[in-house]
């Protein structure tokens, strides 16, 4: 009887080892139940600076208060902007000079965070009209044109000018 005790202990010890090994194997098997696959996704976002203007306003100066210069004519359009950069700005110019005595101005409402330069006289030299555009996407912004004429301008037949707006990216 005494001789069987060590044998039983040995058997139990072996059983314990086997069970421990099996536990580890089963744990590993369970872990292996989650099968995976991987993909590498590559991406980038470029600098984006886009503007759009709508409307082809017509401006006619045809009246005056007696004793004063001709009354200015006004017209409106809209514009929109998207930029993902900082401190972008918009400039404006026209394709040819205005007749003597006539002044055309443009006044762009600024989107959130931007600064309008107010009514700016347009010429063939680009002038800032909105500055400080930073990471903004906004549309339906007002642009107001005004045409003024002095009496010295006389009668001016119908003419057109193309206004070019340019957005210059920031940083």
């Amino acid at each position: 009887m005494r001789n069987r005790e060590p044998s039983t202990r040995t058997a139990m010890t072996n059983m314990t080892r086997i069970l421990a090994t099996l536990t580890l194997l089963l744990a590993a098997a369970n872990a292996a139940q989650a099968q995976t696959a991987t993909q590498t996704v590559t991406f980038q976002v470029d600098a984006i600076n886009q503007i759009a203007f709508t409307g082809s306003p017509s401006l006619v100066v045809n009246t005056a208060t007696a004793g004063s210069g001709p009354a200015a004519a006004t017209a409106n359009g809209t514009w929109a902007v998207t930029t993902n950069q900082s401190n972008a700005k918009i400039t404006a110019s026209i394709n040819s000079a205005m007749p003597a005595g006539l002044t055309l101005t443009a006044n762009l409402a600024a989107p959130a965070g931007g600064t309008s330069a107010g009514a700016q006289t347009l010429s063939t030299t680009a002038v800032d009209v909105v500055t400080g555009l930073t990471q903004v996407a906004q549309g339906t912004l007002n642009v107001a044109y005004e045409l003024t004429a002095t009496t010295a301008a006389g009668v001016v037949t119908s003419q057109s000018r193309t206004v070019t707006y340019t957005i210059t990216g920031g940083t």
Partner: protein
Amino acid sequence: MKVRLGVLAIAALLPLGGRAAFAQTLGVSGDPGLLRISTAVSGSEPIAVSNSSTTYTVSTPNPNRLHSITAQLNAAMPVGVTLTATLAAPPGATSLGPIALDVTARDVVTGIPRRTDSTHGITYQLAATVQAGVVPVSTRIVTLTIVQAP
């Protein structure tokens, strides 16, 4: 004697468990091409881009339960940039549609039936707000995992 029988019984069951554990498999066809955002409609956020050039193959030969597929990234996306994945579902399963990916595993397909062995499309979409700014070329590793449904 009882001990030996017990060991033999467990040893006999082990191979069965091992086969079941490795039954389901998941593979992909490769990596999608560059996702590049470069334009916008004035007044609106940048235009999102997508890529549907890759597929996944799922096999659940003999499971006892339904399976699902999760997806997760190895690192968070930049602020203002969103990467979504849409995995088309095998017959009988459900695609959860575009899922925004992050570092948390999220279900993308659920209810994959037993004995499924099929290949389906993966669509990635990259979207960015203007607040994201300019983002240089970057990579993220998407890990798809097939798991037993609870």
